[in-house]
């Protein structure tokens, strides 16, 4: 295990940080971190086992992302390991002072018989923010996944709703090498790209979940159907290779937070595992 903090990660006024993390399983079945390397703006909480999963909180001790910042995340759940990655607070991107966006590249790998839950707090792009996020998820054929994304419209209480400059989102999800899901989009308040978000709720929170069971997942379809309310508009269905997707628009952060907790509960119940307690998200 190594913790790399020696190389300079700050150049000019931007920060270049990284996280490399790998979870494995000891002979007695206990999951542990077999490797960790990180540099600001990332810090890790002390990993601990919760309900059979290794729970790691990803902490950003700085105020958030600024333009030009770059973060590379490389996380692997090794064979048989149950790993839960969360964040204790929202990810914020501040107003850009230049033409360079903040960039976050995430590579998540889940090996045979392993399970990864990725459940960050909301992503909050502030007024004038520029941000690029690229995510690659590689699942082995019998790997499990519970991957959440939650994009807030901005600091709504301060009157900043869709006031960011642009967000670029890219995602590839593969199962046993086969491309299952590909997303590419740019959200720019000055063009039509936010029309679908604004049509249902004026300050919609966007939630996406990708789920995969190690085995055939007993899909809780009826239970998910009833999660659509006046404040949440939700759809769900199968992708390929026993991977599923849930998409939702929520009227506000309370509806989104409640939805995430409900989905977590349903998924863990369907999979026959107790849900590890995260604190804030699972009240």
């Amino acid at each position, binding site marked *: 295990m190594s913790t790399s903090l020696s190389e300079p990660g700050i150049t000019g006024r931007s920060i270049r940080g990284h996280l490399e993390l790998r979870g494995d399983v000891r002979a007695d079945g206990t999951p542990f971190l077999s490797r960790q390397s990180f540099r600001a703006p990332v810090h890790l909480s002390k990993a601990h086992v919760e309900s059979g999963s290794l729970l790691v909180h990803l902490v950003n001790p700085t105020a958030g992302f600024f333009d030009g910042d770059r973060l590379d995340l490389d996380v692997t759940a090794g064979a048989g390991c149950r790993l839960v990655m969360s964040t204790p607070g929202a990810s914020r991107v501040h107003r850009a002072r230049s033409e360079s966006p903040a960039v976050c590249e995430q590579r998540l790998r889940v090996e045979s018989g392993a399970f990864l839950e990725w459940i960050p707090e909301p992503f909050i792009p502030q007024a004038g923010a520029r941000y690029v996020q690229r995510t690659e998820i590689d699942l082995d054929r019998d790997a499990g996944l519970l991957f959440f994304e939650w994009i807030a419209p901005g600091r709504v209480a301060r009157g900043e709703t869709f006031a960011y400059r642009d967000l670029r989102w890219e995602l590839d999800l593969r199962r046993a090498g086969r491309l299952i899901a590909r997303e590419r989009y740019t959200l720019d308040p000055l063009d039509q790209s936010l029309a679908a978000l604004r049509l249902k709720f004026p300050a919609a929170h966007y939630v996406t979940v990708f789920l995969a069971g190690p085995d055939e997942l007993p899909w809780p379809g009826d239970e998910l159907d009833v999660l659509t309310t006046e404040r949440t508009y939700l759809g769900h269905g*199968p992708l390929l290779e026993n991977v599923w997707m849930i998409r939702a628009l929520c009227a506000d952060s309370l509806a989104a937070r409640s939805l995430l907790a409900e989905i977590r509960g349903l998924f863990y119940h369907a999979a026959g595992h107790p849900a590890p307690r995260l604190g804030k998200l699972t009240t």
Partner: protein
Amino acid sequence: MPETRDSEQAVPAVDPMLWLMQANDSQYPSGAYAHSYGLEELVEAGVVTDAGGLEQFLESQILPALLTFEIPYFAQAHAAAGQDDGARLLELDAELDAWRLPAETRDASRRIGSQRLALLRQLAPSPLVEELAAARPFSHHLVVTAIELAALPVSHAARAFGFQTVTGFATASMKLMRLGQTACQGIIRRSLDRLGGEIDSALCHPGDGWFNPLLEIASLRHARAHSRLFIS
């Protein structure tokens, strides 16, 4: 002496423009009339309720998706079809599964594609058509249309594909809301004007995805609806 299929012997060269009109005629039995592509759920949910809402929906969500993703992707398929590059077409077809996330959207595209491919085998057969039919009989609509119209310049073929998309939504809407034929044609006319103004530049674009969670959620919900008029 190798056996030759009857169709290969009998089919004369087709006039590309006349073939374009035949393949885009509303009487052409592609099965597209049975799909609303998620619009039925959006009407049911009260998101699209009238002619103005439909036109706004087409302008702000469907046309940008066409110009940003579908048309540039179509141009790639059309180029592959023009070069008889069956391997590239299969690659593009497989990738479309990953872009079209709601199962109903994928299935609708493959149903219409397979129907058009079956027609193509009868009406305008070629070795490339046979190759695709053998490897992937349920090919995506976009890929089959690219082969169908490979003899035309891409600017014409892409317009035909865009026309199919716009009219598909618009004609479905007439069964979902109070909308007369003339009003519907007016919406199509104005939508095509907007499309025509930007399609040539879209053809020069490398292509990108488009963010439309509302239509995706609608398609996901439609698949689980207790009663419905359209297949998608």
